[in-house]
């Protein structure tokens, strides 16, 4: 290879440096592009998507969403403030509840443009939010969120306490006392941090046609639930109870509810842990006996999550399935009158139904908190709350909605409301709760496979709560 003189080397080096700088974007300024043409008025809205419930027993009086969402940047006009809003939805129809409501907001408030970002799942949104916050970049102004996030977000100083704003908002007076409490996220000392517009209530689905055929009554207690599960269990054609072993979902929707119904608090007010108490061990043993002793669960019990369980109920494989009001339309669309619901069966000390609120959360990083508040407040107005109540399957959040006819006429809403005295929440505010919840699924699988016994299961998870 030909050798270079120092001068040529320097020249080449300078050339290379210039090339690297150019590649990094240090080029000449390009002419400013012409602003886009104003968008044309939207085409007439198409018919509601097929996911929309056709079999709703009562017609909603609130406005019905008209189209699937198209999250995109709005065309902003001069002087408009853009508010970033993130949300998730179970399906396109549920997403349209938000986007249609926000369209109405923009018509009413032309000075604010809302830019939406639809994120696939609630878990993805939480992670995206925390990542954006940790990176100090790309945070939204407002998001749809759950009450369960609040303690974690308060600790991270991510969110804005809302009580001073709520006190000047007339709808707040209409909130049910339970909603005011739940909107703090579980720690009494915290302020309300969410403008609640939905409450999710769990219950127990049952195959009404099989119950009628076998002349059985919906179970009111856990012992009765075991009896009917045994009575309706006819393997391999059908199974008495849909066991959720594929993820940690049994904590929030099955065994966790039973433990609370037996008086196990997980974490007591004095911060002591009772998850390894004799009552807890007994109930956990009872729960695992559904699989190993009574054999009333489906063969895939250990790996099933809610999609497989839905398929089991809808495919005529399962007689009982825990889920909640927010999926009633999905079940009824397939099974019609063959499916009904009953409150979560009560344990030794009573009934417990873990309720979770959802609504809008404002972020401390936002420089448009006043505008963000207007978006959040609009989504919490009775008209929108009613829309979510009818179309998403939310329980009532306002006193004025308690007497709505849907709670008397619709069997699913009735079941949800009947469990109201047992509405409560898990101590998810505890700093080690996420770790414990994460260990729940695999530890339960070990329990079912006899790799650990009920005592060891409870001890392992109690230790996670105690020590992290």
């Amino acid at each position, binding site marked *: *290879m030909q*050798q*270079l*003189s*120092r001068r040529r*080397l320097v020249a*080449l*080096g300078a050339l*290379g440096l210039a090339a*690297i700088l150019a590649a990094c974007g240090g080029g000449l300024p390009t002419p400013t592009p012409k602003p886009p043409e104003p968008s044309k008025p939207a085409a007439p809205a198409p018919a509601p998507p097929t996911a929309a419930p056709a079999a709703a027993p009562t017609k909603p009086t609130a406005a019905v969403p008209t189209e699937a969402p198209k999250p995109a940047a709005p065309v902003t006009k001069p002087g408009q403030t853009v508010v970033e809003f993130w949300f998730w939805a179970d399906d396109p129809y549920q997403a349209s509840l938000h986007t249609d409501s926000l369209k109405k907001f923009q018509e009413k408030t032309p000075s604010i443009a809302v830019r939406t970002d639809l994120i696939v799942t609630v878990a993805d949104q939480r*992670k995206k939010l*925390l*990542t954006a916050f*940790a990176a100090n970049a790309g945070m939204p102004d407002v998001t749809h969120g759950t009450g369960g996030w609040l303690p*974690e977000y308060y*600790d*991270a*100083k991510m969110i804005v306490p809302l009580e001073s704003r709520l006190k000047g908002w007339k709808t707040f007076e209409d909130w049910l006392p339970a909603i005011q409490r739940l909107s703090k996220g579980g720690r009494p000392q915290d302020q309300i941090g969410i403008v609640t517009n939905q409450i999710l209530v769990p219950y127990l689905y049952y195959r009404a046609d099989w119950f009628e055929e076998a002349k059985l009554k919906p179970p009111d207690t856990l012992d009765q639930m075991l009896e009917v599960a045994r009575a309706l269990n006819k*393997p*391999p054609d059908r199974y008495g109870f849909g066991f959720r*072993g*594929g*993820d940690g979902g049994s904590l929030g929707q099955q065994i966790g509810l039973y433990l609370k119904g037996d008086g196990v608090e997980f974490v007591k007010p004095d911060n002591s842990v009772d998850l390894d108490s004799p009552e807890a061990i007994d109930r956990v043993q009872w729960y695992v006996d559904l699989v190993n002793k009574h054999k009333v669960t*489906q*063969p*895939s*019990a*250990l*790996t099933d999550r809610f999609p*497989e369980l839905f*398929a*089991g109920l809808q*495919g005529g*494989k399962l007689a009982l399935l825990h889920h909640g009001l927010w999926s009633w339309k999905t079940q009824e669309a397939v099974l019609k009158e063959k499916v009904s619901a009953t409150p979560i069966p009560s344990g030794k000390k009573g009934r417990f139904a873990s309720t979770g609120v959802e609504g809008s959360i404002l972020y401390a990083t936002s420089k448009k908190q006043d505008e963000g508040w207007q978006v959040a407040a609009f989504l919490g107005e009775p008209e929108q709350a009613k829309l979510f109540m009818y179309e998403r399957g939310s329980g009532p959040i306002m006193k004025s909605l308690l007497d709505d006819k849907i709670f008397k006429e619709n069997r699913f809403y009735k079941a949800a409301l009947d469990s109201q005295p047992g509405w409560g929440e898990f101590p998810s505010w505890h700093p080690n709760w*996420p*770790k414990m919840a*994460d260990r729940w*699924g*695999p*530890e339960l*699988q*070990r329990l*079912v*496979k006899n*790799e650990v016994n009920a005592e060891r299961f409870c001890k392992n998870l109690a230790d996670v709560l105690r020590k992290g």
Partner: protein
Amino acid sequence: MSTSARPAVAGIEVVRARRARIDLLPYILIAPAVVLVLIVTVYPALYAVQISTTNANMIRMATMRFVGAANYVNAFDDEIFVIALGQTVRWVIVNASGQMALALPVALLLNSAFRGRAAVRAGILVPWVVPGAVVAIIWRYMVDANYGVVNDILLRLGAIVEPIAWIGEPLPSFVVLSTATIWAGFPFFAITLLAALQAIPEDLYEAARIDGAGAWQRFRTVTLPLLLPTILLLLLLRMIWLSHSIDLIFLMTNGGPGYNNYTIAVYSFILTWSQLELGYPSAMVIMLSAVLLVASAFYIRSIEQSREWM
């Protein structure tokens, strides 16, 4: 003096001229690549080492503090880490050797002349080009306990009397995962081995035939020795890939039932993904990387020795 000093001065000038003409061009040409590697590989690796000595969590980055080697020491008190460590070894050995065991006969078959060989060679790549997520979904539903085709066939044949929850049982779930991984991974082995087979000179086989060697002897004395460096290199690459692969394990089983399919990579991913932990999972993957580096060094040495032996 001037005459006697002349050769010395000339010598200094030569040295100066040499210094003035340093051959820097190669360094300049590779500089952008080096800078890029430093930015995208070395810096993140060093940052991971730094993070591994802290209690970093994405939610509590503001309160992150230095914990020294605590994450490394505590790992060995963590029951799940110890389980995952053993299962990482099992996972890598079974799958790397399984892929090689399937790929070698396939490569030998593809190297022989038969009708439709081109189509078969192209078709064999299908499992390799299918994305991991799709492979996981296909296999998960094939072995589903309620609706899976595997159970359906076995029931119809009378081989089983009730459906088996393949991925709900410790050993069957590992067998299913390994089968899916071997199925998806063997084409890469097969095609690479095929290329190596085609590079073996035909003369060697001819000479062996003249010497009266049969098919097995030709394979043992000609094919296998010449393939050995390729086989060893492929196994090394595959072991590294497998040790940090998570897609099939996570999507098909979540690492379960229990922790029966947890590997170090899966465990660290689960901690990061669900609990947003950064410190402890970083320590785990750094330990894994260190083990892989040491193992690779020994392995590469043995590859060199195999070449010398040839």
